[in-house]
């Protein structure tokens, strides 16, 4: 294992993050605050509790997931797309690093960044609503798994993308609707029966449900199912990446 290389990639990527600290961290804080003002305070005060959880608190896990998912994807996608775009990828290709080491470096950095954002939103939420976490260890596990698996997914997009449009296409067209329809702002049980069934094909439902369970101890789907779903998704991403590197897809000529 070339640990020095993993470290070098990780540090280089994190330096980029800290250089753009303001925009990477401030904007999620502002948008979360807006969500809380609109949904938590203004609308939430007229909403009933969901499974005995006040609406304002109910949306916290969903909001964190919403941001963490999209941030993981865009950070990781950009992280690997950018060197491809400007050509510095050649240095990485000519270095004694394996695909696995490259993935750890880039995905690790992207996941770290979105984890930081998740934590910041969590702290911001405390200023608006009262929340307690029932299963803190599981909360961290879910957060880490989500950050890592969606950063892997973002990495795939970054390698696949041929231009900036494609880079934004998947997050825009696929992820945002999945997250909004994944129960960020409502419980799946509030939907008509037909749409409940449809929802169970949405992988994000399992994530949000599991994450919410770690906060409140109650959820739409069983916690075991949530964990299975996220592990399945991670394996799918890992396998895809393995295939990509095996066949040198679009990186090497």
């Amino acid at each position, binding site marked *: 294992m*070339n640990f*020095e*290389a993993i*470290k*070098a*990639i990780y*540090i*280089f990527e994190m*330096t*980029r993050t800290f*250089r753009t600290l303001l925009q990477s961290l401030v904007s999620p804080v502002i948008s979360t605050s807006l969500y809380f003002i609109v949904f938590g305070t203004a609308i939430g005060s007229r909403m009933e509790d969901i499974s005995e959880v006040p609406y304002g608190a109910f949306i916290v896990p969903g909001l964190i997931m919403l941001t963490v998912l999209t941030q993981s994807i865009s950070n990781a996608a950009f992280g690997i797309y950018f*060197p491809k775009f*400007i*050509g*510095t990828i*050649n*240095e*990485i*290709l*000519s*270095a*004694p*690093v*394996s695909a696995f080491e490259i993935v750890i470096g880039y995905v690790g950095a992207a996941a770290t960044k979105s984890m930081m954002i998740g934590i910041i939103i969590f702290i911001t939420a405390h200023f608006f609503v009262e929340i307690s976490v029932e299963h803190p260890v599981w909360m961290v596990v879910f957060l880490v798994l989500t950050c890592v698996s969606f950063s892997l997914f973002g990495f795939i997009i970054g390698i696949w993308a041929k231009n900036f449009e494609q880079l934004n296409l998947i997050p825009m067209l696929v992820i945002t609707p999945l997250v909004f329809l994944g129960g960020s702002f409502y419980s799946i049980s509030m939907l008509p029966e037909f749409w409940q069934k449809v929802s169970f094909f949405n992988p994000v439902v399992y994530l949000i449900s599991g994450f919410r369970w770690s906060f409140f101890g109650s959820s739409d789907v069983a916690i075991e199912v949530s964990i299975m779903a996220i592990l399945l998704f991670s394996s799918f991403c890992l396998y895809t990446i393995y295939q990509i590197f095996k066949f*040198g897809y679009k990186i*090497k*000529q």
Partner: protein
Amino acid sequence: MNPIISIKNINKTFSTGEEAVKDFSLDIMKGEILALLGPNGAGKTTLISMICGIIEPSSGSVSVNGFDVVKDYKKTRSIIGLVPQELVLESFETAMNTIQFSRGLFGKKRDHEFIKKILTQLSLWDKRNTTIMELSGGMKRRVLIAKALSHEPSILFLDEPTAGVDVELRKDMWAIIKNLKKQGVTIILTTHYIEEAEEIADRVGIINKGELLVIEEKRNLLNKMGTKTLTIELNSKIKSIPNSLSSYNLQLASKGMSITYNYKKQEEKTGITSLLVDLKKAGITLKDLDTNQTSLEEIFVDIVRK
């Protein structure tokens, strides 16, 4: 002596159908400076990219230090430094950061003193905390060299290191290259400046259309291919070359004030002695003599045109 790089029958056909490198074989010896010359699109960069792992060969194999560049890529790549032709760098990073990054990427632990030494040598130490986009083109080129040297490679590829570089820096660069050679580093450089090859290379390879046309010790190449020209300045003007001298193929120059004679240096009989005797017989008196050797440039143009 065993070659440090052994290229065996490699080919590269791009997906566009472009055959950039054709059945190319070459052994590169440890510690030599090899200059690869060739017109634009000859396949120099493609060849280097295949050795360094940036492009996969369509067929054939390359071994570096006895290891295959595909199977044992970690072993081969860790001893190779590459200065790419294009100035590709992350604009927002500082010079120092990108160089530290390169060292780490090639598996080496941080070593502040070593990096400082390289940066000082390349006159970059003062610029270490400047972002890349604030550097001039020549400085960026030096940053690329620093990146390549940052992990102490024993083989260095320089793909047109002096393109767009002023005379001063070019001389600096030659000095650096010669210094690296002294430390035992094998150096392969491509260039369009033939005087560069003439100045620093031990061997010269000429590539055209993906094929190696010539590979020769620089001195031999100059000797073998080189024609020398003898210019004879005359004391008094002549109108034409006397008939008695017609076998020498002489040319009249400087409006009849001088005569030029071409000969091959490596031939046993250059014909100079008899020419001088015959000139005297013809009653022509000499003022001065001067000889001139063909440059690599002329040899190069000659070979590529064929």
